[in-house]
């Protein structure tokens, strides 16, 4: 048996993670404003396994979400040696999160039906 199924699984995982990551970050920031390292730690504290982020990938995602105006940011200089860039979810971000959450729930239900309850 070749490794084709592993490769396909890895490709599929990357795509699923990519979509889930922005939803997870928006959900974290909806609770309270936060900075990159804090977001990484919060996600780790939830003991996520499949969605476990590479630390370096969270920051580019934050930057992209900010560029798309779903997040805004301000620098905090409370610790001059460790300045923090705090991210806050915008109204656009909240609206996107609502839509994404609804869609995620619907997708989950639909996939259960398609794959079959026994398999899940």
């Amino acid at each position, binding site marked *: 048996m070749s490794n084709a199924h592993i490769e396909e699984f890895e490709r599929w995982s990357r795509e699923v993670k990519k979509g889930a990551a922005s939803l997870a970050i928006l959900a974290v920031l909806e609770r309270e404003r936060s*900075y990159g390292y804090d977001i990484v730690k919060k996600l780790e504290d939830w003991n996520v396994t499949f969605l476990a982020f590479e*630390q370096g*990938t969270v920051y580019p995602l934050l930057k992209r979400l900010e560029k798309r105006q779903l997040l805004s940011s*301000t*620098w905090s200089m409370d610790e001059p040696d460790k300045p923090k860039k705090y991210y806050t979810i915008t109204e656009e971000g909240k609206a996107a999160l609502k839509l994404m959450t609804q869609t995620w729930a619907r997708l989950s239900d639909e996939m259960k039906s398609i794959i079959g309850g026994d398999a899940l």
Partner: protein
Amino acid sequence: MSKDPEKLVDEYLERVKVYLPIDSEDTLLEIKTHLLKEAERIGEGSITPGSTLMAIERFGEPKQVANEYAGTGKRIGPVPAEYTQPLIRILLALLGISIAFIVGGYVIGIAFPTLIGDLAAIQNWPFVLPVMIVVNVLFVVLIFGGISLYADRDKLATERTTIEGIFGIGSSAFNPKSRSDAAADVIFGPIFGTLAVLPQIHVLFNPAFVPILYLVAVLMYIGAVKGALFFFHGENNLNLLIEGILAIFWIIIALVMINFAMPIEYAWNNSGSGWELIALTDLAALFPATFDIFVPLTLGWMVLIFVIVVVSSWRVLIAVMKIPMYLQAGKGWWWKGTWGPGRRFRRGVWAQRR
């Protein structure tokens, strides 16, 4: 191996920077905070070289980390995506340097057609310059790229590879002004500005050149103010704008200055009984008839104006390139900016966003 944790982090960030777009200082600062926090956590409250290296390793390989930011898949022709950003930097630097030298060569060429005319006949001056630079950089990349395959095997995660050292040329060209350069403006601007308005200096020059000395003094003093702004606030759009406008005035003055083949006509001489003025034409009589002292003096004058025009053109190009880039990033005109090499990231940060 460096043992200072913060230096380890800075070295790692220098590696990441090589692969990032020009405007990435905030990204680097964000990563730095992450690494220090993570190192502190791993070191259970204290940041040690070991915990820092572990934090760096967890964060990822510099090229991959940078590509997550810059985006992958943007291949330009045969250039792999991960090398697009460093190559863009190098090409921009070369283009900028070439334009600056061509402008400088053009200005000098107008005033000294004979000298430059001879050069142009032989070497296609000054257009040969960018071509020579590109060819030599290609050779360097090929040679060191080959060497790096062997030389970089045992390097630490924080140490630059040989090829990154070469790509670093591109990132260095766009570094903000260093604090030492800014300090030099603050110190030397008033010194030379004051010298330029002294009557004892004016008597050395062709009387028609004296009004230009006053203009030079004004620019020197404004340059000192600009230096102070850079020294205390680092690079931001307002400082870049002031520097760009100042550079345009320097180019204009250089265009006027070049009309004087050699404006200095006298020199101060101490005869033993006191200082007295001596005319350069009298000085020339002391030399053999075959040696014309005005030739090296004129060449020196030409080089001085060439350097003024090249440096000023480069500053105008940098301002034109960076100001729209910073505006597009939403930074406005004034913030606490960064400084060039020798700097510490923690001292140059944007205290305020938007």
